[in-house]
């Protein structure tokens, strides 16, 4: 599962928040699906979805 952000700064702000909440993350190239987003995104386990959502509540992102 990929968490895709509009701005590069948000990717690393989110990475920090997710890791603080115990989520295992990996920064990876954004799948070529929507060119209107940042070049890298965060890969997380689907089972972590709810914690992910609460951790980055208020940030501008999409999940693909």
């Amino acid at each position, binding site marked *: 599962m990929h968490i895709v952000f*509009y*701005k*590069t700064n948000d990717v690393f702000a989110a*990475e920090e928040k997710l890791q603080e909440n115990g989520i295992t993350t990996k920064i990876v190239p954004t799948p070529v699906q929507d060119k209107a987003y940042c070049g890298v995104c965060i890969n997380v386990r689907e089972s972590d979805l709810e914690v992910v959502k609460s951790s980055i509540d208020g940030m501008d992102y999409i999940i693909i």
Partner: protein
Amino acid sequence: MIYFDNAATSRPKPEVVYKAFDYYIREIGTSPGRGSYSLAIQASRMLYQSRKTVAGFFGSVDPSCVVFTKNSTEAINLYFDGLLKQGDHVLISPYEHNAVLRPLQTLKNKGVIDYSVLPEEVLYCNKDRINDYVQGNTKLLVLTLASNLTGQIVFQRELSHMAHQMGLTVFVDASQGAGKKLINMQDDEIDVLAFTGHKDLLGLPGVGGLVSKKQLGITPLIQGGTGIHGESYVNPNAYPDSYESGTLNMPAIWALKQALEYIDENIEQIREKESFLIDYAIEALKRLDNVVLYHPDHIRVSTFCFNIKGVSSSDVVQTLDEQGICVRGGIHCAIKAHETLGTVATGAVRASLNCFNTRQEIDEFMRVIEGIRPCT
């Protein structure tokens, strides 16, 4: 060699700054936002970490509110050009550097804005009189944190509070004094601040920035590659990325992060040492009958300026240089400050110390100064 020109650029740097630059350029060496392989991702992560450190240092809570530029001059131009519109009016202090004055004067010459210079009296005595200078179209109050000429503290918290009550935005040029941690954007009601890395912050040349309490809806100064949204024909609406077109000076940004952490860890020692040195120097200069010292009793950073009676400032600089002492003469890119002091015709000699200087260096400086006399 005795280096007393830290207001121009600080020298030397803390050892961690040299090491951080070396580490970045050797071990990372890639540009943030310019690739999705591991090493480029690490560069982007380090950029984020650097933004976070800068934001925390100045009291802004949001790392995305830090825009990196190549220096404070670029940051000031970015803000003024992006913010000010036809018919706006700006208030400035009489101690602003040309980095503030010239962008404003250029906008004035184009017929876009007008500006007024607050007299010293408003800064230090009758602050309420700022009301007399605020017009219906006044948008911005601009104050330098400290004069690059005299070292005196110019920013006044009460003025920023009063400006806010009148609906103005408060902008601070923190090029001088930022490393003393004298201000906090939240506590001191500063909306936007420009900094440079290589002076008081003990970093390297080539990095500065604009810090704000919230993301700014201003026009970017330059257009170009941002590393994101490459499909757009113009910079996308993305803060701060769209205000940093072109490759960032990431080695200097990473070194700045280490410099700020060094300052945070050593701020008490830095303040104590510089306070001792500046008091020692000023008291010694006051005792010399051949010296005219400007504004010696103001609260200040570790910079002072003076002239020697009957001797041009350029001759004083040359004599000191011949004795291995580095100071700066002339106008110091601060024509408004010299107008205020009445030293436009003569210039002045500026000495600027920092925490790496010593009392012995000041003693040697005084020995040379005492011996400089007009030719008879």
